[in-house]
């Protein structure tokens, strides 16, 4: 299929594609890389917090785990307690509550005994890599705005890229490694871009939609008299109390298991046996005479759409007092948001997202390399523009991969009882990540062309070291992990080893072809 567009328009799109790509490549790669890893954020959590490696038991009782613990706590009267029900990827009961002194706390409980689990102090995948994906850990809203602009830029790059290609269908199957390196890199860039074109467009679009209330808060809030809290309640359900506390002490909330069973039965009656399970139980107005219980799930009937579906119970009578489902207008955005969040239980799709994400990283990396190759003349020294883009390119691509490997290694090496004034253990892991990244940039600037190969070797060595350290510090080498059904650890070790082997292969190829 040949796109018939005027030549001057194609050239304009080519200019836009080239320079916008160069300007955004570093930040886009960081977003793509952390987004790809976030697909398996809970598995990374289990690798970095060995206390969570045991498989999730069936039929966990909240009455025997969460309620005894809540009875021991000095909770702030009238506050909200959230209880996370263990799932396949989250093998613990989670409590989020406010203490009487107003401090917010989070606890993880053993799903078998209800004992508090002393977790390794790490932000791991879900609290470091995941937020990095959408706010780059830049304080304030600046990170959100940078990511938003990058997402917008990504959509422009995708559209302009379509116009740049003369033969888009032919590009579906074109990869010529035997041609000169520059041609092969362009083929690979085109191939990874074209085969996953819908993915590369939908991801930034859905990302923009998810954080629309951050980027366009005033316009979103106009229908709600400018009150963003009302907007959140309309779209996201009962995060806020719907009944004011009485201000008088109340009795126990009764059996949480019974409320969960009742909600599950109601959903099953509506949707049949394939219905999804509840994910959260919330006790609103805790220890108050007007307390009530909300049972919540996010993926109705195992669908893509992400939206809260809540059943509200009166804990004294056990009666259903309300039911929240998002407004119909929320349906489309819920589907698109669910597509981006990928929190549903669908392992095939999870792996396909991971592969497509890596494809996106490869697309950005090869695009950068092609730009540099086009400006290199072997008989003359590289121009300053190439040297600068190369240093930024290597630092932002190989550098973040090295930083991630160092993050894993730091997790296994930093002692659990490390005590530094005002510095938490998880801060040290994050410090190691950013230090390694900065060093990678510096190395790329100093070593120039050789940096590609040397950083590939570094990735290979660090990846293997991470797996070995996991073995020596937890005893979970791949075979032992298999023995205790720690599948997430086994697969993560294998993926890290595969990445190390790929990096080593790339280093060998670079050596063979003279960097």
């Amino acid at each position: 299929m040949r796109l018939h567009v005027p030549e001057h328009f194609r050239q304009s799109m080519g200019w836009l594609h080239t320079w916008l790509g160069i300007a955004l490549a570093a930040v886009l790669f960081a977003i793509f890389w952390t987004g790809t890893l976030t697909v398996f954020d809970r598995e990374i959590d289990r690798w970095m917090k060995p206390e969570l490696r045991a498989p999730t038991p069936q039929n966990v009782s909240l009455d025997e785990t969460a309620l005894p613990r809540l009875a021991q706590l000095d909770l702030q009267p009238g506050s909200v307690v959230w209880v996370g029900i263990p799932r396949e990827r989250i093998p613990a009961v989670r409590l989020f509550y406010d203490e009487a002194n107003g401090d917010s706390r989070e606890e993880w409980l053993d799903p078998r005994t209800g004992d508090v689990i002393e977790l390794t102090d790490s932000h791991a995948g879900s609290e470091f890599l995941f937020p990095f994906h959408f706010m780059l850990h830049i304080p304030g809203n600046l990170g959100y705005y940078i990511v938003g602009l990058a997402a917008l830029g990504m959509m422009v790059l995708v559209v302009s890229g379509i116009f740049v290609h003369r033969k888009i269908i032919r590009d579906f199957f074109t990869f010529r490694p035997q041609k000169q390196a520059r041609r092969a890199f362009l083929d690979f860039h085109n191939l990874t871009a074209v085969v996953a074109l819908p993915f590369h467009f939908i991801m930034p679009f859905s990302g923009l939609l998810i954080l629309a209330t951050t980027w366009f808060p005033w316009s979103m809030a106009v229908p709600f008299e400018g009150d963003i809290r009302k907007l959140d309640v309309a779209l996201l359900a009962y995060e806020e109390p719907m009944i004011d506390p009485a201000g008088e002490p109340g009795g126990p909330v009764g059996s949480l298991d019974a409320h969960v069973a009742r909600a599950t039965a109601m959903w099953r009656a509506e949707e049949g046996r394939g219905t999804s399970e509840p994910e959260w139980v919330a006790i609103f107005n805790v220890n108050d005479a007007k307390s009530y219980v909300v049972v919540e799930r996010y993926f109705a009937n195992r669908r893509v759409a992400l939206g809260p579906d809540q059943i509200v119970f009166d804990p004294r009578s056990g009666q259903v007092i309300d039911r929240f489902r998002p407004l119909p207008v929320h349906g489309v955005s819920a589907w698109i948001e669910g597509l981006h969040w990928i929190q549903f239980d669908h392992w095939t799709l999870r792996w396909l997202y991971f592969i497509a994400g890596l494809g996106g990283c490869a697309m950005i990396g090869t695009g950068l390399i092609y730009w540099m190759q086009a400006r290199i003349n072997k008989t003359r020294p590289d121009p300053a523009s190439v040297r600068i883009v190369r240093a930024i390119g290597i630092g932002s691509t190989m550098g973040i991969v090295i930083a991630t490997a160092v993050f894993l290694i730091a997790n296994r090496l930093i002692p659990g009882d490390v005590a530094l004034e005002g510095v938490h253990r998880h801060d040290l892991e994050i410090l190691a990540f950013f230090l390694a990244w900065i060093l990678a940039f510096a190395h790329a600037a100093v070593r120039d062309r050789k940096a590609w190969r040397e950083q590939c070797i570094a990735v290979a060595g660090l990846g293997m070291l991470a797996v070995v350290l996991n073995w020596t510090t937890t005893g979970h080498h791949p075979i032992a992990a298999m023995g205790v059904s720690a599948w997430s650890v086994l697969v993560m070790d294998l993926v890290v080893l595969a990445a190390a082997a790929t990096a080593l292969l790339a280093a060998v190829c670079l050596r063979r072809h003279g960097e």
Partner: protein
Amino acid sequence: MILLTTGLTLAGCALLALSQDHNWKLVTGTAPIGRTQLVIRVGGWVLPGASLVVGIAVEDPGFAVVTWMLQLAVACFVVAMTLGFHPGLLRLVARTCSGYRRISSGREA
């Protein structure tokens, strides 16, 4: 079921690639013949379509469409890599489509 949909998508993509003259010649070393090319082209569109239908039949249409879209991407990538590094691996597909005629080793060209 995932194996079936993946197989259909992969086979469809292989046929779509072979329906392009330059890829057919790369794999077989011969020029494509009209009837064979028609069979390949139809198969190339029908098999991925069948994969989507099977997916929708067994799970939520939303999941099926997204899974199919990404399976298609991976399948296209795999076929492109095969054509790039070991095009001979697709000779069996080409032979099957042309009724085991006219293609010998693919090295004539």
